């Protein structure tokens, strides 16, 4: 099957604008701007069933339709702050297929009537941000961005904003705060960004991968898009595969592809003769799926889509599949995830800020073999008190691995508490 998002793997040099044009580039943008009303673009994207690829899986066209027609200007903000441990897909899109991505951003701007779009790229991707800025300049030079697009009155300008190392800025309201020149701390909702967003104006915030789907949908139509994936999760998805696999990397596959195909067929299985013990399908924010002889086939045959992964007590999220073999104790795994969340908690909500501080102490002590059984209960209790009590999802995410680990891998916690 030809690639839809990672097309640079089929077409060498696609990061060059001339090669992109020779391969159908900007046809969708021209079609939209010259022949479709913005509302028709919104309807087509709604009909496609495209769901946000940043993690939440919210229907993109529906999100766009929340913008009020009575308040202007509208803004489009692209979330290129990819920072979830285990996620490295947006980076490959921007490096290899930047013009398809930028055409997608421009299409989103046209659909919601935004003359300005901002692309918020994480600071660590500095060279990519420079590359994207150069691509924008090239598009302006050739009339694919700027004023009077394709001889119409449509104007679209895109600008890059560089982050500076904060996972929380991937949370959409924190991202807006950061773009406005403040500390990246989430806002209280409602009001939602669709009504009160960037500079207090209606704003659409979409992930890089989501936007990169748009040229295909606009050019070929919703029905063609729906030929891939499942009914409720249409399209393809880039799965970032990492951890204990032979061939880690990005794999573009239809939504609904089973775990077995990703981990064993594409990923080459588990190295060093080890056994698969656990999977985190949504990066560090996942509940941990336990894999053992009793459920191996059931897990392996589960389709990776937004509806099916919850049947294993986890989530698809951004599809950052971290594979863990039987050489790594699970109490160490959650120590690692808590180290991350404790560092990245923005400090605004007390349960997340203090809860993660205590969870860090507890997971460190448990992993060091210095804990007593009551510490494991206390850890579970602290996690329970963080969950559902914060302004944004970071607090909840920090508890996922912890609580699922204690519940599903009790032997790893008996072992470390047995010594005390």
């Amino acid at each position: 099957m030809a690639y839809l998002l990672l097309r640079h793997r089929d077409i060498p040099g696609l990061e060059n604008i001339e090669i992109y044009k020779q391969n159908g580039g900007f046809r969708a943008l021209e079609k939209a701007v010259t022949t479709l009303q913005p509302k028709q673009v919104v309807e087509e994207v709604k009909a496609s069933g495209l769901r946000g690829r940043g993690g939440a899986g919210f229907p993109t066209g529906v999100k766009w339709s929340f913008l009020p027609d009575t308040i202007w200007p509208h803004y489009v903000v692209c979330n290129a702050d990819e920072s979830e441990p285990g996620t490295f897909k947006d980076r490959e899109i921007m490096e290899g297929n930047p013009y398809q991505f930028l055409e997608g951003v421009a299409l989103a701007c046209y659909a919601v009537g935004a003359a300005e779009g901002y692309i918020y790229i994480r600071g660590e991707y500095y060279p990519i941000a420079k590359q994207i800025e150069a691509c924008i300049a090239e598009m302006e030079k050739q009339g694919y961005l700027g004023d009077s697009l394709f001889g119409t009155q449509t104007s679209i300008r895109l600008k890059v904003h560089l982050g500076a190392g904060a996972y929380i800025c991937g949370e959409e309201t924190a991202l807006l705060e950061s773009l406005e020149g403040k500390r990246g701390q989430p806002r209280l909702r409602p009001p939602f960004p669709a009504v009160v967003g960037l500079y207090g104006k209606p704003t659409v915030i979409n992930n890089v991968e989501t936007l990169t789907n748009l040229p295909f949908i606009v050019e070929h139509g919703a029905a063609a898009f729906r030929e891939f994936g499942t009914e409720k999760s249409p399209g393809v998805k880039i799965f970032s595969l990492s951890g204990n696999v032979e061939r880690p990397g990005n794999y573009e596959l239809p939504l609904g592809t089973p775990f077995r195909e990703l981990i064993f067929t594409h990923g080459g299985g588990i190295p060093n003769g080890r056994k698969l013990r656990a999977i985190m399908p949504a990066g560090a924010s996942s509940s941990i799926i336990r894999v053992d002889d009793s459920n191996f086939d059931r897990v392996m045959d589960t389709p990776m889509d937004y509806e099916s992964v919850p049947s294993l007590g986890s989530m698809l999220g951004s599809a950052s599949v971290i594979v863990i073999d039987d050489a790594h104790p699970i109490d160490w795994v959650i120590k690692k995830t808590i180290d991350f969340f404790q560092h990245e908690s923005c400090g605004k909500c007390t349960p997340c800020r203090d809860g993660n501080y205590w969870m860090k102490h507890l997971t460190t002590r448990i992993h060091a073999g210095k804990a007593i059984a009551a510490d494991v209960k206390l850890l579970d209790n602290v996690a329970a008190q963080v969950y559902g009590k914060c302004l944004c999802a970071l607090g909840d995410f920090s508890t996922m691995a912890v609580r699922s680990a204690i519940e599903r891998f009790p032997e790893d916690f008996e072992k470390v508490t047995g010594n005390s």
Partner: protein
Amino acid sequence: MLTEKYPSEIQAIFAKYPVKRSAVMPLLYLAQREEGYITKENMQEIANLLDLDVTEVAGIVGFYTMFHDEKAGKYRMQVCTDLPCALRGADAFLEALCDNLGIRVGETTPDGLITLEEVKCLGGCHRAPLFQIQEGDMVAFHENMTVEKTMELVEALRKSVNSSPRAATA
């Protein structure tokens, strides 16, 4: 003064946003370009440019891990040890780097060349072990690394610093 050193760049930054406060992060990167950290004087100047209190600017510097308010080595070598990298040996890699460089995490080599830091996910989990090198306002990734390759890189950096006219400041 940043306004004297980078007048056209500052103008271009302000032109990007309808609200000038949005310029704070790009201005901080500019302030970090030469010395690798942001001085109190630069924070005050940025605060004046944006009609902010200097405390607010300092609060932003403190919030984001890629802004620094203290001098370090010329190159900040930032190794990711998050879960996906750690599953592929990043912790052992970092430890071996410490041994080879003769410093601990957070310390700087005696010649002021390298400050070794441990950071959170860089988005290169499939190419672990990896680190980024932060130099001024720039970043470069070094992926699929070994200790040998890293020490060769350090030597190359050392040579390039010693042969450049700005070496005296390093």
